[in-house]
């Protein structure tokens, strides 16, 4: 699971996410589905999603200051950005990613 950010990711402009989920909680399941869909739609060629289940790795949430679930962290391209929620509001997500929104 570690080393999600491969060498050259940033140079290639790849979108790398780490998604903190709480097991199979409904909003967690939705968050994964929504993030996956956004990635497929906007950068199908160059994205990677790392999933961390805080119920299985609770101390990671503490160490990485994750307060709520689900939380998505965009690791690349920089700057790092946290997005909390089930990512159902696509426009907010796109704004967070600095992508042009729907015309």
């Amino acid at each position, binding site marked *: 699971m570690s080393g999600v950010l491969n060498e050259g990711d940033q140079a290639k402009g790849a979108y790398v996410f780490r998604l*903190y989920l*709480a097991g199979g*909680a409904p*909003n967690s399941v*939705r*968050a994964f589905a*929504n993030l996956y869909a956004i990635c497929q739609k906007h950068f199908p060629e160059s994205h990677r999603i790392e999933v961390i289940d*805080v*119920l299985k790795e*609770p*101390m990671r*949430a*503490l160490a990485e*200051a*994750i*307060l*709520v*679930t*689900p*939380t998505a962290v965009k690791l690349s391209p920089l700057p790092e*950005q*946290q*997005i*909390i*929620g*089930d*990512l*159902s*509001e*696509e426009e*907010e*997500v796109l*704004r*967070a990613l600095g992508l042009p929104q729907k015309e």
Partner: protein
Amino acid sequence: MTDKKQATVLEKISSGIEGFDDITFGGLPLGATTLLMGGPGSGKTVLALQTLVSATTHHGTPGIFVAFEENARRVVANGETFGWNMRALEKKQLYFIDARVRSDIIKSGAFDLTGLLAALEVKAGEMGAKLIVFDAIDVLLGLLDDLAAECRELYRLHEWLLRQNLTGILTMKVEEGEPAISQRYRCMPFMADCTVLLTQRVADRVAVRAMRVLKYRGSPHVLNEVPFVIGPAGVELGSSHGVHPEPQPFDEKVSTGIERLDDMLCGGIYRGTNTLVTGSSGGGKSSLAGAFIEAACLRDERALFISFDENSRDIVRDLAMMSIDLAPHLASGLLRMEAVRTEAASSEEHFMRIKRLIEEQLPRCVVIDPLSALARVGGGLAARAVAERLIYLCRNKGITVLFTSLIEGFDPHLETTTVHVSTISDSWIQISYALLDGERNRALSIIKSRGSKHSNQLRELIFSDSGITLADPYTAGGEVLMGTLRMEKENAVHNGKANGQ
């Protein structure tokens, strides 16, 4: 072990703050949730942290502090300033979590606290934590930005605390004047078994802190607002339940330091009681106080002299002119004198300071000169409450107290407008000026002396370089004669007698 029994006997966890345990009849509910609400800077965090530190220090109870607003390192550093050994505690039994919400966070859709609680559950289990503080829970709830969601998450937190069998302390910021009734916190009551509101107000330009227990499920508690201070060792509360302590049995009398005054009081004042000396400015109240404190020192009793707005050195010098020599007792440590500046603090802070002085010096006799100075800060009602508590504090400790109170003008009834303590004082000595034939002489009378006979006479009070005394009562035609008038009368009578022979 039956569940029924557990439900009826509410166990409590001491806050480590004497006064707080008093007003809550034992402290916070064990295994339940306490909510501390208040405006910014009202002392919520200090109170929560102090309880946590106390439980860890005194009972070895491990605990967790979750900081949503302040940097956790700063919370630790703040604790250090109160002399709490944070570093040592942190190594073993205290765990601080920096859970500040990032300002650049973006929200998209629904979320909840499951992640944080899952993590805390593991940590609490690992440490065997019994107590957990969520400091500034309002910041976390603010993220949700939706009342229904806030209530849902509070409910989740509540359920989690119960399941973990943890004692929870939540602090929450509220705007002054909109406490539990506010829409936002309407879902709080069901989850908090104990709710305390902390306030900070400014009265006469002095900040006054107070707290009030709004509710305490299954337990009696003091309903009134109780003033408190944040002193050098943290939150201090000087509550006295509002219950008058049992008066101690009067048996031993102590001297006032003025022989003839002792005679008027049939042997002096009872040990452990308090005596109020009222008089106008320059009437000699402080001199009486000086005589009393010297007498205590001469009996080899520890003593404390607290003066408001007058330098100790000046008092010692003035008293020395009347052959009251306090210097050797000061040097030996038998006597301690403290000069307090009235305006520097609220009456509550004065109370706490005097309480500390009493605890340090362990005096048998105390002078507070003048107690009416308290009325100048923090408002009359607060000053009266403080004066009362001081009196009860001394009475409980069996300390004999003499306190003075200033009367402006010459009307003795004006005493009622200052600190209003004459009703709770055991004895009341009034120094007045008697105006007779163009002369102003000091007159002393005993207005009351509880549990003892006393002279009702008005006596002339004489200050001289050989000390303080009272003149023999001298009445003519039903009037007390003083000064020149008395001398003339005495001479006339004397001459009359001489002529008659």
